[in-house]
């Protein structure tokens, strides 16, 4: 170890194409689940806002889902989805994303001031129409804040998939560790951080575009 530098630049130079492929694979594995999570969270969130009794049990379930260790879930899924398949990693990641996005969606829908809700009703919006035309657009900043958390976590978590054979850039960690060669590990950490940062910036830009009226950052979960 003593004579091994943290980064051997030539290795990176020699493997640019390889790194690019891993990066693309990683982006798909990590971000498609977030998109699916969003597509599920919006209708579920609307239903929870319309029928508040639904929310308590759902949020309890997703609280537990969020507590499940990713590695354990990947492993448990292998008999069903197969070793080293995208599905093994993407399926749990979808649920993690949903666990983050459902509460933020519901919070956002609920954060609309009561006066706005009443004004809408008084102008002749029915309950569903009001939810989709008034409360949902007003919840966009919350949704985006939730997406930022979900996307960054997903990008970081996806690398654990390498332990079950499909982790995008996470493979670099396994590879580097097995060969006691830190360069791929450093490259992997860096690329994951860069991917997360890029996605985050993209979402910030999306918020500016979609919700220019949201002055302050709203509803990010810790």
């Amino acid at each position, binding site marked *: 170890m003593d004579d091994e530098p943290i980064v051997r630049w030539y290795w990176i130079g020699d493997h640019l194409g390889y790194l690019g492929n891993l990066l693309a694979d990683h982006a798909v594995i990590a971000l498609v689940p977030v998109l699916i999570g969003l597509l599920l969270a919006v209708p579920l969130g609307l239903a929870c806002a319309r029928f508040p009794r639904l929310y308590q049990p759902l949020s309890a379930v997703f609280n537990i889902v969020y507590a499940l260790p990713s590695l354990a879930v990947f492993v448990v899924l292998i008999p069903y989805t197969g070793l080293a398949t995208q599905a093994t990693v993407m399926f749990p990641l979808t649920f993690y994303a949903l666990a983050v996005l459902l509460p933020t969606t519901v919070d956002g829908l609920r954060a609309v001031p009561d006066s706005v809700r009443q004004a809408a009703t008084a102008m002749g919006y029915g309950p569903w129409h009001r939810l989709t035309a008034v409360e949902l657009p007003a919840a966009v900043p919350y949704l985006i804040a939730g997406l930022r958390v979900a996307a960054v*976590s997903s990008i970081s978590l996806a690398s654990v998939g390498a*332990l079950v054979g499909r982790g995008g850039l*996470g493979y670099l960690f396994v590879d*580097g560790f097995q060969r006691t060669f830190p360069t791929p590990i450093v490259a992997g950490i860096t690329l994951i951080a860069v991917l997360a940062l890029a996605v985050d910036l993209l979402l910030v830009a999306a918020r500016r575009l979609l919700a220019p009226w949201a002055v302050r950052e709203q509803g990010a979960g810790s």
Partner: protein
Amino acid sequence: MNWLNWLSDFFSDPDHRSGPDSILHRVSEHLTLSGEALLYAALLAVPLGLLIGYTGRGVNVVTALAGAARALPTLGLVTLAVLLAGVGDTAVLFPLVALAAPPLLVAAVEGVRGTDPDVRDAARGIGLTHSQVLLQVCLPSAAPTLLAGFRTATVQVIATATVAAYVGLGGLGRYVIDGLATRQYAVTVGGALLVVLLAVGAQLFFALLARFALPPGVRAQRRAR
């Protein structure tokens, strides 16, 4: 082979009943590692967060850093730390602390900043010093937020500590990794189940703590919101 068979195999294996690979031993290893990481993270993040929240300086920087820290892949940090520092608790503690510190830091900052400014003002007005205001006024009112932060951090650390086994350390991850390496799914699934139970147990513990250990005034206030 179905799940139940796996689990009964796992729990009836004599190796898992006593000795270094016993369930009790692995659980205690897991909890020790998680507890240590949380302790260091708390010692680092909570005072800093309280101070930043109270002065209001550097809040944006802290929030941005905490967000960025979420992007750091624990597996990457663990493997790198072991390659650089050798196998040992310290090598794994560092990534776990990096995992636990951001939610704690953000919770402390947000909690203190969430104190009603009028209450803070009044406390200053009746003659409390800054440190008294921070400890006697802001800290209790930040308690619910702080507790929520601890919950997030604990659950994440317990779940992620599993990864430590990959670089040769103990804990429940041993079952998961070893089972995977030897194609013994019974062992893997049993280990995974235990981690899930620990994490859910931690969730319940914090939910109960929030319900019964918070100052009554703060609890009521929280419900009102």
